[in-house]
């Protein structure tokens, strides 16, 4: 909607989630379960709450191996296999302690069983995973697991309070790709040290954190000792940003999902990972608050989320007044209010830019996808023209459009080539935009684009194959040397989506498919020709692959998954088939 451009909504969302009583209720649940041994499952007003305990053992926070205590998900176990991957196809890094706690729950409790039961019995009723402190990190992993398993038609929701950072940039990318960002709400109080802690080098936080930790567990520690430790911890966290030490690499941890920043002036939600990272740093300090007060607050706020939320509610009941509003721009005022709500002050223009940048990116992505949608409509005409081309070839010339195109004997073939190129340009552009993150993160899983891409591939890839074999070296193979990336990517999108679709029972066909389902079929035919030639020249090892191809065709043909044009008299396939039968006859014992 065009109003996206003019207004911000971060505060409205945050305020409504607190005012409606959901977050206070969730915090209550989390407190109740904080001392439990393992997870707790409660149902209240048709919502299931799965809660994880807060402070278990110090060594889970500070795992003493690896530079940033990150475990590599992929090599450890298979709970997340295949989907928590970065855009470089490498597995995301995950905090080792949280991972260990999660694995314990998965392997040593009835957690899995209960979640599976819940998914079948309460299919349409919502479930929330909840955790405070490191419990929040465990809740996050549990949510990622349920999301990845696609156990429920309604996706689970995750709420954390004062949760430390869980994973790296690859995790951010994986979550963005799946469009799961909206399923995570991380509530972070302005001064709470824990959500920022892992931004500092590990060695620097071990000592102070070890001193502070017992205090949160309710153990009496002398005030002065605590104060000193807090001071040190705070300094290291602030330093990690303001003076990057060149020889120690900065922390790999990155925030993902939606962050709700709370302060005594209000609350606002932010979704963009790099903006959140900025805010995690800047909200921690402010001019009005002295360093000593921050030292005090960074310890206390971690365990006082009930109070933090109550302040947000009281703010919304009282209302806020601006002494001297100065802008007439809705967007600018919205940003100023948001900055004020999260407690960094409306005058921080640099941070206003960061918020605006996040908004602009989203807006741009929406504009892009809207433009592409209109263009897709226009490209339907090119598709229709090629469909028509296929029919003319079959009905008037009794030839498969593949062969007609490969021969390029006629004006209509030349025109078809122009259309092929136009469509290729369109899809190449889409894929390029997708890879440059210029499209919404859920683009590749939207049915509309998956179906359009699939329709394109089925109709036009045979022409790309024909073009390849018409022009390429005789020894090149389309599948390994010539297949364009757009076809590979579009095919992967379809396959990814199929995994998420509840298995649809494929009804047996009664008529041949109008377009061959396997878009590389003609490439196999071309290769079979080459194999047959080679075989005739005495390369007997080709026999096996020819027999395999023959078997494949028989199977596909019986399942009616090959279009009838393949079997037109005189088609490349039929010629091959005759030649192959001849060979078999000649060589039958």
């Amino acid at each position: 909607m065009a109003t996206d451009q003019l207004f911000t909504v971060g505060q409205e969302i945050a305020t409504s989630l607190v005012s409606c009583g959901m977050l206070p209720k969730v915090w209550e649940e989390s407190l109740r379960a904080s001392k439990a041994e393992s997870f707790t499952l409660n149902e209240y007003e048709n919502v299931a709450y799965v809660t994880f305990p807060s402070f278990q053992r110090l060594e889970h926070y500070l795992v003493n191996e690896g530079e940033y205590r990150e475990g590599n998900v992929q090599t450890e176990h298979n709970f997340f296999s295949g989907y928590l991957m970065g855009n470089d196809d490498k597995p995301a890094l995950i905090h080792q302690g949280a991972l260990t706690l999660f694995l314990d729950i998965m392997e040593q409790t009835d957690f899995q069983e209960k979640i599976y039961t819940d998914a079948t019995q309460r299919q349409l009723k919502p479930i929330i995973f909840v955790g405070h402190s490191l419990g929040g990190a465990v809740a996050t992993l549990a949510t990622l697991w349920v999301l990845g398993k696609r156990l429920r038609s309604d996706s689970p929701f995750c709420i954390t309070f004062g949760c430390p950072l869980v994973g790296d940039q690859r995790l951010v990318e994986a979550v963005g790709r799946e469009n799961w960002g909206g399923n995570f709400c991380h509530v972070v109080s302005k001064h709470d040290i824990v959500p920022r802690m892992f931004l500092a080098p590990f060695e620097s936080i071990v000592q102070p954190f070890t001193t502070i930790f017992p205090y949160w567990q309710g153990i009496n520690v002398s005030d002065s000792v605590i104060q000193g430790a807090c001071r040190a911890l705070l300094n290291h966290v602030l330093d990690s940003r303001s003076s990057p030490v060149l020889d120690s690499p900065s922390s790999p941890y990155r925030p993902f999902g939606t962050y709700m920043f709370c302060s005594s002036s209000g609350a606002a939600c932010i979704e963009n990972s790099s903006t959140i990272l900025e805010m995690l740093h800047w909200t921690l300090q402010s001019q009005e608050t002295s360093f000593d007060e921050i030292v005090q607050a960074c310890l206390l706020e971690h365990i006082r989320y009930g109070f933090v939320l109550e302040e947000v509610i009281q703010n919304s009941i009282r209302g806020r007044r601006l002494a001297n509003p100065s802008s007439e721009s809705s967007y600018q005022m919205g940003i100023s209010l948001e900055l004020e709500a999260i407690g960094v002050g409306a005058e921080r223009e640099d941070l206003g830019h960061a918020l605006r940048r996040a908004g602009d990116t989203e807006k741009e992505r929406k504009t892009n996808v809207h433009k592409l949608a209109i263009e897709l409509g226009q490209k339907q005409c090119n598709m229709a023209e090629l469909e028509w081309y296929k029919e003319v070839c079959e009905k008037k010339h009794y030839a498969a459009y593949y062969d007609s195109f490969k021969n390029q004997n006629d004006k209509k073939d030349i025109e078809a080539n122009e259309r092929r190129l136009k469509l290729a340009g369109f899809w190449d552009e889409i894929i390029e935009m997708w890879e440059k993150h210029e499209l919404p993160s859920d683009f590749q899983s939207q049915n509309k684009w998956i179906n359009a891409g699939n329709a394109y591939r089925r109709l036009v890839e045979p022409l790309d194959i024909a073009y390849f074999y018409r022009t390429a070296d005789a020894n090149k193979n389309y599948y390994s040397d010539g297949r364009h990336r757009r076809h590979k990517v579009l095919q992967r999108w379809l396959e990814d989506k199929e995994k998420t679709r509840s298995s649809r029972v494929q009804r047996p066909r009664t008529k041949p498919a109008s377009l061959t389902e396997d878009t590389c079929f003609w490439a196999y035919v071309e290769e079979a020709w080459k194999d047959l030639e080679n075989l005739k020249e005495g390369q007997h090892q080709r026999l096996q692959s020819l027999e395999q191809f023959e078997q494949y065709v028989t199977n596909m043909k019986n399942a009616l998954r090959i279009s009838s044009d393949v079997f037109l008299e005189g088609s490349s396939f039929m010629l091959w088939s005759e030649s192959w039968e001849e060979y078999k006859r000649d060589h039958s014992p």
Partner: protein
Amino acid sequence: MGESVSVFSPSLLSDAWELSSSVYKSQYVNCSYVRSVIRSNLVVFAFRGSLIPNSATKYGEYQVKDGFLDGVKDGNNQRASVHQGALSQFEDIWSRSDFQKQVIEDHEKGNTIVFTGHSMGGGIAALATLRMLEKQRQPKSVFCITFGFPLIGDEILARGVRRKKWADQFCHVVLRRDVFSRILLAPSISVSKPLEVLLPYWNRSMQSRADSVGSTDIPMAEAPPGGIAEFVATVVQHCSAVSNYTSAAKMSPNNPLIAAVKPLVKLSPYRPFGYYLFCSSSGAILIENHYAVLPILYFSLQTLGANLEDFILQHVNYGYILPNSLQNIVKLSELSDLPLSDAGSVHQDSRITTQLDALGLGIQNCPARLALRAAGQVLKQQSENLSILEKEYPKKMETPMDKLEEYRLQCLRNDTGYFDAFKKKQRGNVDFQANLNRLELAGWWDEIIQNKFDKDELPDDFQCKKEWVTRGTHYRLLVEPLDIANYYRLGKNEDSGPYLTHGRPRRYKTLQKWLENYEEPLQSPSTKLIQDSCLWADVEELACSMQKNEYKDEKRIDLENRVRALTDSHGLCVEDLMTGESTFKTVVNWLWKQMTPVDQEASALRSIIYHPQQTPQI
């Protein structure tokens, strides 16, 4: 204000208040309504009601049953929900024959009827109005004025009221700090305890004031009960939740967090409908933009700088405050450029500035100003989108429609129906051009329906606009047969299933619903088309059965029913069905052979087979 709304004059509003407060008199304790003829042709009914605690649902909502608000349903045929307590009180009164008889008699005599009420009495008045609106005559003759009205209807009702253009027949007068008018935004349980004390208190106050009217004794004002701070905070908090949530959802409809949270939070279902008059002691502001009402209900109730007792007292103080505020009514129509700063306020009508300040919506309340601007922007965008469509229509849609009309005629001249010509695609370029026209139109309507209409980016009454219903219907009747032909030509039924259950594009379903909900007759188009765009889908499914030689009575009866309905309503175009070697003809001939003579005798297909234009086939 529109012409018809001039009934909401300050003098009528005062009269309505007088009558609404008079029902509290001890002498009327056994009556639930009072009738008064204010002037010739104008009859006012005032109701007394009470907030009946209800624990069946979280907010006391109840989905209405057949016979009430039948014309108010959403796109999925869901019925509206209203507050059950209000509904049961209204039905009590309505079912008493003397009341119903009186109202209908007054109405039939040509009187204008105004229903009014204070507090829950306003809720009953609103329901009475809705009941009578379903049968009102033109020009508008039924109106509603409420005081301290708690929202009692859900989103479906609110949309229905706007779609049917009833909004200007409701005027809800609400005092800035009247907490009761927001009370149903909070869960019943969260306020039930304090209400046990407050409801009787409000009732006593109203009664003692009503009884003292005309007497010289000024009643001793009873102080409001204590311990109200928490109660007020609870109501404001839930007001904030609903207002913030709806604002966010409206400004960022695709926000993933909002989508994920939706099933988790059960907010109050009640949404405003009708016009609102927000009053303070210095004046009043009339709000027509429904998107602005919730934000005002919330922001004007915020407690900063307020005296807590006001929140309770104002519910019963309309009598004191209205005389002043009705003197000074301003209308706030364009909200999208409401000033945000002093510099901007310079250009604003100072009376509006004063009234906004008096409601706590001055420029210092920046979040409130932004929410109002957003509300204005949504409506503005909707009407801009509409005018773009109006401008584009002749350019983009008329040509392909004309070409497809011509295609159909050309096919008939060549002795085929256009369905079969298109499906078989044997004659070349003409059919191909028709396909391009079909695709062009599909793209356009998909854009309108999926990207605009479904996302609330067009005015609420778009689907009731005669020219658009006509255009959509014409498009559907002419072009959907081609979509069906294409579907079966490409064997998509093999991939996905029958067209009707698995392949019918949403645009056609939506357009058909628009027509079904449209109440007036449409202008008949110049050419006569088959008035059931799905007939061909049944025919194609039968053709598939024919190929497999699987005759089934039920399928035949389905087709007969469709044909019969069309014959009865003169919606059949035999030419399209029977010209040349049509699929329809083949299928019907096959069916005919499978039927018993008794079936044949009763069959709706008989009249087509023996149609005068056709030579008998059998």
